[in-house]
């Protein structure tokens, strides 16, 4: 068993420990005193260099671990190889498209897809990429050209640091179908009919996606602020968007006008 320095969350405080990493379990010494067999792990997520490990034994709980990238990489590999999850051998390309631009030099990597409770992991010898299911914007069974042939793939569009990224999975069609159905089922709460927004509101959504602010949207679509506000309410109400900033428009008071007049005079 190897021992590595790490921080774990214990009683809502981060504490430094010598984390024991064995072939089949993680050992956290006192004051935590915990052994987690990898096979009892039923969910693994990663947020900003923190691994969130959910396990069933010895009791159902979650452990948060922070460490250097190399340690987290080893932990992720060991957990993803043995944890309780839907696992299949596949080729994947992640990311294949970022922000609408095909990623130059993106290659198919041989590895496995591990679907845990809250996310999909792409695992290869050099990579462990996690897509949280909540961040999956669209899952499609489609075709792409691989070595000159139209080949079935599953494409997963997801949001990563505010950018829309597409990843692709390639494996035999029957397995793809199972993966597709599984992912569709896991994300069905996010499915919509497609007719919830009218034409203008759809254009507004597209402009938001493209990174336009409300000022740009108003001027591009030639719509008044009040109408845009109503469309924003609709988009927010449908759970398609969230408020990131509130912009204010003000007009000067008499005192303000006087101040500006004086300031202009003093510049002469």
């Amino acid at each position, binding site marked *: 068993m190897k021992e590595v320095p790490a921080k774990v969350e214990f009683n809502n405080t981060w504490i430094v420990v010598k984390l024991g990493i064995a072939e089949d379990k993680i050992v956290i010494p006192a004051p935590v005193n915990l052994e987690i067999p990898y096979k009892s792990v039923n969910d693994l997520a990663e947020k900003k260099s923190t691994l969130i490990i959910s396990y069933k034994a010895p009791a159902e709980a979650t452990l948060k671990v922070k460490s250097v990238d190399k340690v987290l990489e080893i932990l992720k590999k060991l957990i993803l190889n043995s944890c309780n999850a839907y696992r299949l051998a596949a080729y994947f390309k992640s990311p294949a498209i970022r*922000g609408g631009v095909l990623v130059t030099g993106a290659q198919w990597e041989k590895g496995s897809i591990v679907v845990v409770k809250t996310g999909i992991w792409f695992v290869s010898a050099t990579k462990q990429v996690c897509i949280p299911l909540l961040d999956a914007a669209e899952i499609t069974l489609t075709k792409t050209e691989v070595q000159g042939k139209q080949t079935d793939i599953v494409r997963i569009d997801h949001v990563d640091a505010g950018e829309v990224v597409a990843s692709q999975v390639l494996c035999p069609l029957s397995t793809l179908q199972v993966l597709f159905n599984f992912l569709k089922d896991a994300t069905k709460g996010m499915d919509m009919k497609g007719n919830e927004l009218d034409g203008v509101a759809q254009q507004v959504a597209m402009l938001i996606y493209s990174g*336009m602010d409300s000022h740009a949207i108003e001027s591009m679509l030639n719509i008044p602020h009040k109408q845009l506000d109503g469309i924003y309410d609709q988009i927010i109400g449908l759970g398609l968007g969230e408020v990131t900033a509130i912009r204010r428009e003000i007009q000067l008071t008499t005192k303000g006008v006087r101040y500006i007049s004086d300031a202009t005079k003093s510049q002469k």
Partner: protein
Amino acid sequence: MGKILIVDDTLFMRTLLKNILFTGGHTIIGEAGDGAEAVEKFKELKPDLVTMDVVMPKMNGIEALKSIKQLDPAARVVMCTAVGQEQMVKLAIKTGARGYIVKPFQAPKVIEEVKNVLAT
């Protein structure tokens, strides 16, 4: 920063690209709504770069790209394809496109791609 010709059959997409590229510091010297108009505008305006939609009436983007490359083999053309049309990208690259963006796109990525193509 470059002089850019935007080619797309929808006013909405042209306006969006115009806005994005203007924000990126480029000058939009013209717009075209189909492939045939794109070729005419290319001859007339001699842009540094063309953003070219693939599916358009009269003459599609691939045909327009071929005509533009015949006029100027060094022309910089960035293709705009929709999701699911990625196979068109290979054809466009074979025909001489320098870059490609997939709709819907995000402003920073479009600016980056255009900057990269202008630098070549």
